[in-house]
């Protein structure tokens, strides 16, 4: 199993420390405790489903994975390859059939505040204003009203929604709702962030803009991120590491470190020859993955 290149991890940490301190000092807990983001470890994780007709479907087969603190891991693969199932198990929504998922030292058994989840649908609560949606996480922990208001204002400003704080979510566009969801997760100060095709339902322009914003935020916070996507381009653009999963039963068939993401890089990354080469490599792996269990072997 290839881990992300040591150089990337080192730079990630070097950038992470000071930025993390600056961004996090307003949180009620001491900065030292929040500055570190734990590793995520999957050991022999499998998931089987029993269908209504009684058949067993092997969705995920034997995944071993070590995700280093501060990595931005993108998972791509053909439809139905179990990548969302994998993420649901990390989030604690589904128990694995076999193996264990751990975040830091703790074995995952249920959803929790330490793992923030950004869904494909905004999942905002329409009975609350945009601001109250973002305040919800801190409110559940008993953070005082004034403090959580400051938190909400800070993170809504970060995602560019400061003008819309008192609106209801359904009064916002799809892209703005997705920004609000990201602010809600960030304001809750999770240790790691799990994103399940968060930009999948957006138009291309909004999607590119949000990718840049997300990268910017990640560069400030350096939280560990697992990001599920259909788009190879998106995976290589955002990730420090791209995992390709095979068709069902899903397993990791390519573990590709990405060295492109320099701190200043923007959309122009996409035209670099290295970017194009990586995109071809990952696409080929996905293409191969689709045929792994098919009748015709891949012709190279």
């Amino acid at each position, binding site marked *: 199993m290839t881990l992300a290149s040591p150089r990337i991890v080192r730079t990630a940490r070097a950038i992470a420390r000071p930025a993390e301190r600056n961004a996090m000092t307003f949180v009620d807990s001491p900065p030292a405790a929040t500055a570190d983001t734990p590793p995520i470890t999957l050991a022999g994780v499998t998931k089987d489903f029993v269908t209504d007709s009684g058949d067993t479907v092997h969705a995920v087969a034997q995944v071993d994975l070590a995700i280093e603190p501060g990595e931005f891991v993108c998972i791509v693969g053909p439809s139905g390859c179990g990548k969302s199932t994998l993420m649901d198990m990390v989030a604690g929504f589904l128990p694995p059939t076999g193996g264990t998922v751990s975040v830091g030292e703790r074995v995952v058994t249920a959803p929790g505040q330490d793992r*923030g*989840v950004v869904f494909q649908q905004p*999942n905002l*609560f329409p009975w609350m204003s945009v601001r109250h949606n973002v305040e919800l996480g801190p409110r*559940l922990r008993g953070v005082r009203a004034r403090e959580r208001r400051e938190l909400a204002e800070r993170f809504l400003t970060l995602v560019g929604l400061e003008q819309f704080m008192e609106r209801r979510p359904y009064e916002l566009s799809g892209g703005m709702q997705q920004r609000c969801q990201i602010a*809600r997760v960030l304001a809750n100060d999770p240790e790691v962030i799990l994103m399940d095709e968060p930009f999948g339902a957006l138009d291309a322009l909004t999607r590119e803009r949000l990718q840049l914003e997300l990268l910017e935020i990640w560069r400030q916070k350096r939280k560990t991120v697992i990001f599920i996507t259909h788009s190879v381009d998106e995976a290589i653009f955002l990730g420090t590491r791209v995992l390709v999963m095979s068709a069902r039963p899903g397993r990791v068939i390519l573990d590709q470190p990405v060295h492109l993401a320099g701190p200043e890089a923007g959309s122009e990354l996409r035209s670099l020859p290295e970017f194009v080469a990586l995109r071809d490599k990952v696409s080929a792996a996905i293409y191969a993955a689709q045929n792994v269990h098919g009748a015709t072997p891949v012709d190279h």
Partner: protein
Amino acid sequence: MSAAVATAATESGPAQGGPRGRARSWPTGLRRGAVHASVFAALMLTWWGVTAASLIDPLFLPGPAAVWQAFVDANTCHPVNETSSRIVCGAQNYFLWEHLLASLQRIAIGVSAAVAFGVLLGFLMGTMRGFGMVLEPYLNFLRALPPLGYIGLLIVWFGIGDVSKIWLLFLAAFPPITMATIAGVRGIHASRIHAVESLGASRWQVLVHVVFPSTLPGVISGVRIAVGFAWTTVVAAELNNGIPGIGGLAYVAGTQLQTPLVIACIIVIGLAAIALDSALKLLGAVAVPWYGKAKA
């Protein structure tokens, strides 16, 4: 002359498109109001025409004026008849509005109890699978019963007065509220629950912050159904010892062949039902402004 015709023609040019143009520029509400008003006027005119021409015996169908007079008499103190100096107030010893109020009061008590009990039961049945599965057949049975089918039993248990009527309304109103609550709880999208759980919510916090508000639109429409059902039930239940009560008045007036008063009661019953439903609809729009606007 021909010039004048020509002028008239050119002037009528735009005017020809006029009626349609003018109709389009009318506010839609006004146009709809005009349609309603003319249909209503036609209906009243037919009623008046048929009765004024004595096509039907007034005992079966009195004219609008007689119904209006019965309505006024039932709300005021007036002589028993033109020759007598004895004064009576209202009908059956109560003013008509007191009869209406008595019925509304029964509904208010019965339905309030049904909302409190029905919502609680719905939450328990919706969140605890086993509990819901065990109780659901009984709930369906009760809901399928026409309430007047068991009024006899309630009279044996609680007497012929108000208590049995209120029990009847309670039993008629809570099953639809419980059903709507269960449907609301079970219909919550799993990702909504997941979202709040991964923000760190406890089981209780999930209920308070997500399950309850998500269910609110369903509960409110359940209450609307229940109130409509309770209204039809109370009017029918007042056939037995229902004075004061608008249904009781309609029934007693019928047995005494006071057809104008019966028709006045029918109109009041119908209008009251519409007013009740509109009030609840308004309440719903205020309480759940997001309903129908928010996805998932």
